[in-house]
């Protein structure tokens, strides 16, 4: 058990490209830390730097009180689960799990006890004599975890461990990993590009983009107080809607109409001209349902293009025109998020009881208190509640973290 301290870590490849750029994260003892971001954001590189499979260009990495920058992987006492499991195909499940213990020259009785224990925990007991080639994906995944938990490692590192499983199994294994981590209380660093995993597993989540740490906060803080456009767009599903907005006084002019903002939010946006408003799909509602439950907020009328009814909720899609200044920024953002937005449209999540139909004009309610305002140039969230947003990377200076 140990804390892992990452200080100004940089990974620069031969061509000068910084895959990880000045990242600082303090992972506390027993904490479940998630590294998340779109592909190519440097999250896997960062994990491999922690475990020692990638050299550190500059910065300092400490496990407990030890600086481990120049130690070989085997001297760091970390356990890692690889994305493709990396099981030893010539060994049985038993020997696969026992492998780290055998390397540590543990005596056979002790090895047997620990392997049986680990197999018990992961329900692998009846598969111990089989070879990995004969196991299903989920079983292989569990063997890989068994190899990690069997020894007294200082921390677990997971590199997208569930990305090779089908959706159902992924859900089960996610719960399993969470349960195991709580049970063992061991420091864990978990890399994923899946935000469901990030939100459900992590004590804290570090969002990375192009090698730079964007925000380090709890899942709830990330969701409610995203530090910038990137984090706002990355966290949440369906993603946050971004609309052009102009604020004058306390009224915000959106493509569908004008809504009244709370004074503290409006104040932060004074004199900034055209901004980007971010509203989560869940902060909209069918106006008739909202008024029947007595919720306060603004309403507007608009034509709904497509409706997707999912039973407990309904997604409605509403197209809008964005001015070119904002459009470019939104398109860049979409590219960063690995997405491909074909048209600018608003996604709203309505109650499943809503009777709004496709192609009809409908009255939609929205909660202006939940609205975020972003600077279209820097992407900064102007209305962020800094006390509840963890640590946010400030846009102006790529190295500086607020």
């Amino acid at each position, binding site marked *: 058990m140990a804390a892992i301290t990452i200080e100004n870590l940089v990974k620069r490849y031969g061509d000068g490209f910084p895959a990880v750029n000045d990242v600082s994260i303090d992972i506390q003892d027993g904490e479940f830390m998630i590294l998340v971001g779109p592909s190519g954001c440097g999250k896997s590189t960062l994990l491999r730097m922690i*475990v*020692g*499979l990638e050299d550190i260009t500059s910065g300092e990495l400490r496990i407990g009180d030890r600086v481990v920058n120049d130690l*070989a*992987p*085997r001297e760091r006492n*970390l*356990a*890692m689960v*690889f994305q*493709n*499991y*990396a*099981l*030893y*195909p*010539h060994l049985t499940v038993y020997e696969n799990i026992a*492998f*780290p213990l055998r*390397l*540590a020259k543990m005596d056979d009785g002790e090895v047997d006890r620990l392997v049986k224990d680990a197999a018990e925990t992961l329900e692998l007991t009846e598969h111990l004599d089989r*070879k*990995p*080639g*004969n*196991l299903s*994906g989920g079983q*292989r995944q569990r063997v890989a975890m068994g*190899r990690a938990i069997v*020894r007294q490692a200082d921390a677990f590192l997971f590199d997208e461990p569930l990305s*090779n499983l089908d959706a159902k199994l992924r859900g089960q294994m996610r719960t399993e990993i969470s349960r195991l981590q709580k049970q063992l209380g061991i420091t864990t660093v978990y890399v994923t590009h899946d935000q469901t995993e990030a939100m459900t597993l992590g004590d804290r989540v570090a969002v990375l983009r192009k090698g730079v740490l964007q925000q380090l906060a709890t899942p709830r803080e990330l969701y409610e107080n995203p530090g910038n456009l990137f984090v706002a767009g990355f966290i949440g599903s369906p993603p946050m809607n971004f609309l052009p907005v102009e604020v004058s006084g306390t009224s915000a002019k959106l493509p569908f109409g004008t809504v009244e903002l709370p004074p503290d939010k409006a104040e932060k946006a004074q004199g900034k001209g055209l901004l980007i408003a971010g509203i989560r799909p869940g902060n909209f509602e069918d106006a008739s349902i909202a008024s029947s439950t007595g919720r306060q907020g603004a309403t507007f009328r608009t034509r709904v293009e497509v409706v997707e009814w999912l039973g407990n909720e309904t997604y409605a899609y509403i197209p809008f025109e964005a001015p070119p200044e904002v459009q470019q920024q939104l398109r860049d953002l979409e590219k960063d998020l690995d997405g491909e937005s074909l048209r600018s449209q608003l996604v709203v999540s309505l109650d499943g009881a809503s009777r709004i139909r496709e192609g009809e004009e409908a009255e939609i309610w929205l909660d202006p208190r939940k609205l975020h305002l972003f600077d279209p140039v820097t992407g900064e969230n102007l209305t962020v509640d800094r006390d509840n947003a963890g640590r946010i990377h400030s846009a102006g200076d790529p190295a500086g973290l607020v």
Partner: protein
Amino acid sequence: MLKKMGVPLGVLVILLWCLLPVAWIISLSFKSEQSITSGNPGFFPSAGTGAGWDNYRAVWENDQFRRAIVNSIGISLIATLLSVIVATLAAYAIARLEFKGKRLVLSLALAIAMFPVVSLVGPLFDMWRAFGIYDTWPGLIIPYMSFTLPLAIWTLSAFFREIPWEMEQAAQVDGATSWQAFRKVIVPLAAPGVFTAAILTFFFAWNDFVFGISLTSTEAARPIPASLAFFVGPDPFNRPASLLAAAAVIATIPIIVIVLIFQRKIVAGLTSGAVKG
């Protein structure tokens, strides 16, 4: 009907074509010498000319031949072992490490493999006599190694490249040194490649005639193929064909045994299950 028979028929023709000389030499080895000199053309020895196991017994009791077998087995096994060890290490370096002159090493190896053996015999003869390893085991082991290494390196580096690098990294994270990761994970996974290389090397060394006859002068190191050429028997004008046939059959047996042993180890797709396929 004809379509169905096509493949078995083809196989049969090829088998006949390949195995007829073998069958013939086996037939010869069971005929008595008179039977051959008197010109008995039948596949089976005609009445009264069958030699039974006499030829084999005679060959086996021949000191010269027994020495040759020992030489052949010893030299071929040592050459194979050394060649495979060196090739495994070299191929691993070539597959895993980035170093200057990697391409040069590979193309040089290929060039050596293509070099005509005969052109080296003269210089080697002179050199070996100067070094004092003419007519010794090392005198044959060294050229065998240098001619089999290139092929072994190429075969093995292809195998190593197939092994996911994660295997090795996983081993290192699990607490292995680079050497342990290599020995406990990479080598077992490359075993089919190692055995393939071993078989190829052993074949080359066992079947070699040119070096065997040029770089030896006595029974101290003369291998079987060369020894057979010197196998004259009691009458120098009448070579004992049936004895030679029996000797040839005996010389083939170790090859068959080795191939059968190694073949079991060459299980394709040993790495399946290592990573998600």
